[in-house]
């Protein structure tokens, strides 16, 4: 019996092709059963995320299994025959190596991301429950999960945030711990501040205040995020209670001055205050960062931190590959 993988991902196919191959979470089990029901195929499993769809098979004849699966997919997706150019076909050790790279986040668009581990586990669980896997896939996947864990604990492939939004949220957690007791104010209802504020809310931030020159836009964004709109001339008053300020107005000159923050310090009882300035030109006067309890980060600093994390992750690839190769040597493959 041979271990096979047919798939496509963000490196081999554009989104308009990937989306045609996508399998919804609720159908992972039934599709795995369809695979296992093909002629000469003993086991089947499908992984489907926004960046990849991969079909894992255990079959007696590799060529026959690939042909069967490709024609089945062509029928299902109704794509032109040249879609086959987007697919990769792997056999035996290449499959296990690839699977280990996938669960370790080495094959992800965002190197080292952790979500893929859970997604592969979910796919495996669905196939297992549907009875589409047996001894080979069970052993290979369980070993791959072990390798994935080893790679993540023994290297720093998943350390550090690689996007500006995540860097800001991680910093907020480093300052305030759990964000459930933290309040956030957004100055300017731009896209970047909306995304960053949403990340803070998703990690538990208690409430959001939105101040914008156009009050209607502030109301709109506040409603979208379950927060409160504030008139732009009243943000100084709100500063007395919030913990995080995200600013991204289109103003050509600074709008938050040292004097504004100094004025709020007594009412705040000198509690820590985190300013995230993602506007260009900057909204917050750099002198604000000289105030003792203020932590000020502008877009360049956040971007630099994200880039450093990305570089650090890239430096880890070799070490991760070494762990995978060592572990692969211990695998016993069929055939």
């Amino acid at each position, binding site marked *: 019996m041979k271990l096979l993988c047919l798939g496509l991902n963000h490196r081999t196919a554009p989104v308009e092709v990937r989306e045609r191959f996508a399998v919804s979470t609720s159908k992972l089990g039934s599709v795995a059963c369809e695979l296992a029901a093909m002629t000469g195929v003993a086991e089947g499993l499908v992984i489907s995320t926004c960046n990849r769809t991969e079909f894992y098979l255990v079959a007696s004849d590799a060529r026959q299994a690939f042909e069967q699966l490709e024609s089945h997919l062509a029928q299902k997706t109704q794509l032109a025959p040249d879609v086959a150019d987007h697919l990769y076909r792997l056999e035996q050790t290449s499959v296990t190596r690839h699977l280990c790279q996938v669960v370790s986040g080495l094959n992800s668009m965002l190197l080292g991301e952790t979500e893929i581990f859970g997604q592969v586990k979910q796919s495996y669980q669905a196939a297992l429950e549907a009875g589409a896997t047996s001894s080979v896939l069970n052993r290979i996947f369980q070993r791959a999960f072990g390798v994935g864990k080893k790679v993540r604990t023994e290297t*720093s492939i998943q*350390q550090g945030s690689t996007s500006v939004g995540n860097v800001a949220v991680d*910093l907020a*957690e*480093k*300052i*305030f*711990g759990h964000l459930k*007791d933290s309040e956030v104010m957004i100055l300017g209802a731009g896209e970047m501040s909306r995304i960053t504020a949403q990340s803070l809310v998703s990690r538990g931030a208690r409430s959001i205040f939105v101040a914008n020159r156009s009050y209607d836009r502030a109301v709109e964004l506040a409603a979208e995020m379950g927060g409160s709109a504030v008139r732009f001339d009243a943000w100084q008053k709100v500063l007395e209670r919030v913990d995080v300020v995200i600013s991204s107005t289109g103003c050509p000159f600074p709008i938050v001055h040292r004097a504004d923050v100094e004025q709020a310090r*007594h009412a*705040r*009882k*000198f*509690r*820590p205050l985190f300013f995230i300035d993602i506007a260009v030109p900057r909204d917050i006067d750099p002198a604000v*960062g000289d105030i*003792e*309890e203020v*932590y000020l*980060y502008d877009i360049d*600093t956040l971007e630099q*931190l994200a880039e*450093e994390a990305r570089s650090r992750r890239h430096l880890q690839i070799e070490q991760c590959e070494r762990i995978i190769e060592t572990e692969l040597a211990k695998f016993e493959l069929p055939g």
Partner: protein
Amino acid sequence: MDRWLLLTAILLALIASVRGMLAVHHGRRSRSTVVWMLAAMACQVAFLMIRGEARGVCPLKDWGEIMVFLSWSLSLFYLLVGPAYRISLLGVFSAPVVVLFQSIALLPGVLHAHPKKFADGNLWHELHSATSVLGYGALALAAVAGVMFLVLDRQLKEHHLKSGLFRNLPPVRELLVSLERLLWLGGSLLTLGILAGCLMPHDKQAIGHLIAALTIWTGYAVLMTVKATRGLTGRRLSLLTVGLFILSLGVFAFV
């Protein structure tokens, strides 16, 4: 026997320090620190039991015993506060202080080789000694938390966020909350100690000691009152906590 126990306690706390620092340097959590500190604390307890047995009263009769009692108190509060507030790194910062205090106890002449037996101890005297040293243990740990805050604050201010130490330090707010609670706990125990000190029989020589104690107590009381009413920046609170603790050690070393 008591010196061997003390030496073992020093070694265990030293292992906790070194292993903790290495773990932090490599960006890992120092999971074993709590175990080594627990073992060090067991030796401290055994030491204090032997000395207590020999003294017939609470073993706080020479500077060596006071230093070990202070180390025990610091370890105790770390073991109570650290895991409860998920501040495992507190151990990495506390362990060197414990090593220092216990090493001072081992210096020649600090720990009496033949502890004098006291026929019957005065209850107020013993309560004064025990609660005061316990209080200083809590205040020592508050100072440790203060140092941790100052390190983290500097790293956040200067955007130096790559070190293993930064990754392992607890959040600013958690550190400040722990620091404040330790200050209240230490301050309360110190208050009890001073009240008991006023009730115990004392001679004229004790006046200087009482004045020193009241000065230190006033310092902490002002700090906590200002923090509770007006508020203080984390940096100032930490600096004052560390400064007051060093001052209190200095004052009692000379008064």
